[in-house]
């Protein structure tokens, strides 16, 4: 069973990994992203994640559908945490179950890259002396850039 959820509760990596397991599959690959204490030498106190929730859910569903059409995988589970996260807490978990582990590795890596580029979630880093909304490195290639 696929799932894609946003939650303000702490994430349980093992629970996500177990939920995607069908009895026909042999392996699950799980990506677990978490709050770093240091980014480029600067200390983060905590993070705030905010989402455009209904659109984020739609975009998560889209990337799962794309992954399932591109890779030989069975089930995908994505959970992204929102709100305030302390250092070391898990922000995102992506689990992919597949009959063969190679496809699971490839799909999981593809999904996290895609999620970071397309799912409307934003991260604010809070430092000792300020805070900053982080802008994604790259824009999704098919997206318009507007503005002045």
């Amino acid at each position, binding site marked *: 069973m696929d799932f894609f959820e946003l939650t303000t509760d702490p994430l349980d990596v093992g629970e996500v990994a177990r939920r995607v397991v069908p009895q026909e599959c042999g392996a699950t690959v799980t990506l677990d992203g978490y709050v770093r204490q240091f980014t480029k030498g600067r200390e983060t106190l905590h993070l705030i994640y905010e989402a455009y929730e209904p659109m984020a859910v739609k975009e998560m569903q889209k990337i799962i559908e794309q992954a399932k059409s591109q890779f030989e995988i069975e089930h995908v589970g994505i959970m*992204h945490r929102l709100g305030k996260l302390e250092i070391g807490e898990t922000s995102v978990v992506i689990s992919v179950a597949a009959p063969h582990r190679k496809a699971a590795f490839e799909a999981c890596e593809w999904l996290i890259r895609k999620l970071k580029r*397309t799912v409307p979630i934003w991260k604010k880093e809070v430092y000792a002396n300020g805070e900053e909304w982080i802008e994604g490195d790259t824009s999704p290639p098919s997206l318009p850039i507007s503005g002045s």
Partner: protein
Amino acid sequence: MKVRVLFFGATADLVGNRELTLTCADTGTADDILHLILKDFPQLQDQKLLLSINQEYAYGFESVREGDEMAIFTAVSGG
């Protein structure tokens, strides 16, 4: 027509609001709405902005209709 415009993260902070309702000409594009917003909130001009209409990524030339939900935000940074 009336259009809801949503802001998130950096754009919500710059606008000082998470949601506005705009009244504008009945035939308009996302870019038309964006330019109305930029007139009131010039502080958004330094941002690379992404647009969505009804929770789908949209180009500036796409039409916006009465009751649509548009959103204006910077490049996403989840994960």
